[in-house]
């Protein structure tokens, strides 16, 4: 979607027209299409979407972790004004180490099992982003007393900041000796070690159980308050998005279908999908059971014509099947991609109440015919 929000002054990250496709066994999968997003200095921006909508692929494209065949990436990703996609690999690696920090999704599998935590993290301090010239240089730096202990001091410092219990003990342990919560903290620490300007967090805490998840989120909240970092977060959990973000992008089927400030998204959602998501959040005050949006994410090797959401949309009609939905802007910061909002369209504009009604009716008839 070509978003219309005014690009923040001097954005840390500006993604423009990003598209990603994969060569696969069954054909070419057109996954990410025309994604625009930006993150300003000190902003917390979240991409929200269900599993399979392409949010992880987007972040991997930004950090350059997709293997180029079979992936095909096009568009521009500007970090501090430099396009990452057209940069040579070594410069890109340098940025990954220093300017951009990434917190990976699954803490249990994202740490190397055969190295002690301290070893891995200290290596990130010494060699993340500044690679040694060769094996001899590596050995020299690794085994230099002063350099190594400086690195380890830094690790200890950050581990304390992420509220790791017993940082010293953790550094001497192997990842499988640590709990899930501790591993997640270690991952966050690893992203912060080199003082990044931009932190990218992929479903932080999702793989852990609820109480730990909460603790991690409050940790992130503290970190956000303490530092002047920009954060790009991914989640499928609306509650998390609401709690931590300044702005939100809603992603579906590889496209950004709605964007706006947190308040705008939650108070005045425009796209039927967003409304459906909000409608299906369980509420304690409601009597009715929340209905979900039936159906599943599109098959990327053979996506639907026109709007990618139309097979599941309660407002879909012929116009939705035949044309790509245009982008409509609302105010300074919000926009959405839906045929119903096009000035020439005749159908009703989606509202929360109407969407809820239509979804309930649809799930009712599904239950009846089952």
């Amino acid at each position, binding site marked *: 979607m070509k978003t219309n929000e005014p690009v923040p002054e001097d954005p840390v990250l500006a993604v423009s027209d990003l598209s990603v496709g994969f060569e696969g*066994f069954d054909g070419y*999968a057109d996954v990410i299409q025309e994604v625009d997003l930006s993150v300003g200095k000190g902003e917390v921006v979240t991409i929200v979407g269900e*599993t399979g909508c392409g949010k992880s692929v987007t972040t991997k494209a930004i950090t350059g*972790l997709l*293997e180029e065949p079979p992936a095909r990436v096009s568009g521009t990703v500007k970090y501090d004004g430099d396009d990452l996609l057209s940069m040579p690999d070594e410069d890109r690696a340098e940025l990954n180490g220093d300017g951009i920090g990434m917190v990976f999704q*699954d803490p249990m599998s994202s740490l190397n099992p055969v190295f002690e935590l301290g070893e891995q993290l200290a290596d990130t301090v010494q060699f993340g982003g500044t690679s040694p010239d060769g094996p001899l240089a590596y050995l020299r730096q690794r085994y230099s007393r002063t350099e190594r202990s400086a690195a380890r001091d830094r690790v200890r410092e950050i581990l304390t900041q992420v509220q790791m219990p017993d940082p010293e003990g953790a550094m001497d342990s192997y990842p499988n000796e640590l709990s899930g919560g501790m591993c997640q903290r270690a991952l966050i620490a690893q992203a912060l070690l080199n003082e990044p300007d931009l932190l990218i967090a992929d479903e932080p805490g999702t793989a852990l159980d609820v109480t730990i998840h909460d603790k991690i989120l409050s940790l992130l909240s503290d970190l956000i308050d303490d530092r002047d970092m920009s954060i790009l977060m991914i989640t499928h959990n609306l509650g998390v998005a609401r709690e931590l973000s300044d702005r939100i992008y809603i992603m579906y089927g590889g496209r950004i279908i709605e964007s706006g400030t947190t308040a705008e998204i939650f108070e005045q959602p425009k796209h039927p999908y967003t409304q459906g998501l909000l409608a299906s959040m369980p509420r304690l005050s409601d009597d009715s059971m929340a209905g979900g949006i039936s159906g*599943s*994410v599109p*098959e990327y090797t053979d996506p639907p014509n026109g709007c990618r959401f139309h097979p599941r949309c309660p407002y879909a009609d012929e116009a939705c099947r035949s044309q790509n939905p245009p982008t409509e802007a609302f105010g300074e910061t919000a926009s959405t991609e839906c045929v119903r909002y096009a000035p020439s369209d005749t159908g009703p504009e989606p509202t929360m109440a109407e969407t809820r009604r239509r979804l309930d009716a649809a799930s009712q008839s599904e239950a009846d015919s089952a």
Partner: protein
Amino acid sequence: MSTESSRLDRFISPSRRELWYRSYRRFTDQPMSIVGAVIVGGIITVAVLAPLVAPYPAHVGSYTDFANALEPPSLDHPLGTDSVGRDILTRVIFGYRLSLLLAATVLGIGVPVGVLLGLVAGYTGGWVDAAIMRATDTFLALPPLVLALAIASVFEPTLEIAIFAVASLWWTWYARLTRGLAASQRDEQYVQAAELAGASRTHIMLREILPNCLSPLLVKVTLDAGIVILTGASLSFIGLGVQPPRPGLGTMVANGTKFLPQQWWVSIFPGFAIFVLVLGFNMLGDGLRDMFDVEVEQ
């Protein structure tokens, strides 16, 4: 590219036909598998048709023609002649026959025995399992060649005894493999369903569990064919396998060592022939392994 987090889920489960097609593609995508299949198929065909295909079938037995001894490769004798004047190409073809016979017999005995014992051990568990496994461990504690040597030397060294010696060890690997597979299948739903339905243990072992173990077994048999042939050739080389004047490939190499390096063809061609056959089995086995997507302990 991380397979865990960046591959998108597929929501369509592939049809049976598609699965077969994919397996077939996995095999044919590797040129080496096809080469292996061609080699093995070709050699088996030639060996079976040996009396028809070989240029000098009479040279297989006790034939001597000293006038033509130690002739270098020529049009008459593409692989040359050996120390008593026999055509090497003919003897290599018949040698392939013996090697394939060895492999077929050893595996024909060792595999069923091993698989049966493995099934019993894996499915029954308990002390039966422990007893059978102790026995296999004992046999596995020695390199096959050493024990085969010891056994082969108890009687007159001949091909048949060598077969017996090698087969008597070979079942252990299959027992181990099958036992592992059977033990892991024991708690599967289809097994428990059969138990509930009152099927006999034999039925469950043979008709339920065994078919699910076939793929890894097939891969291992193919790869083992090569190893058995190598072991047999080594025994013949030492003098404990095929005895002259029978055209055992290892025996031929041993006899030719006296004439190195000037009349190199007497040793080199039979040796190379062994290499080609084993290479074929290895490539074929590897292709099968890719096709069935299996991990086999070697």
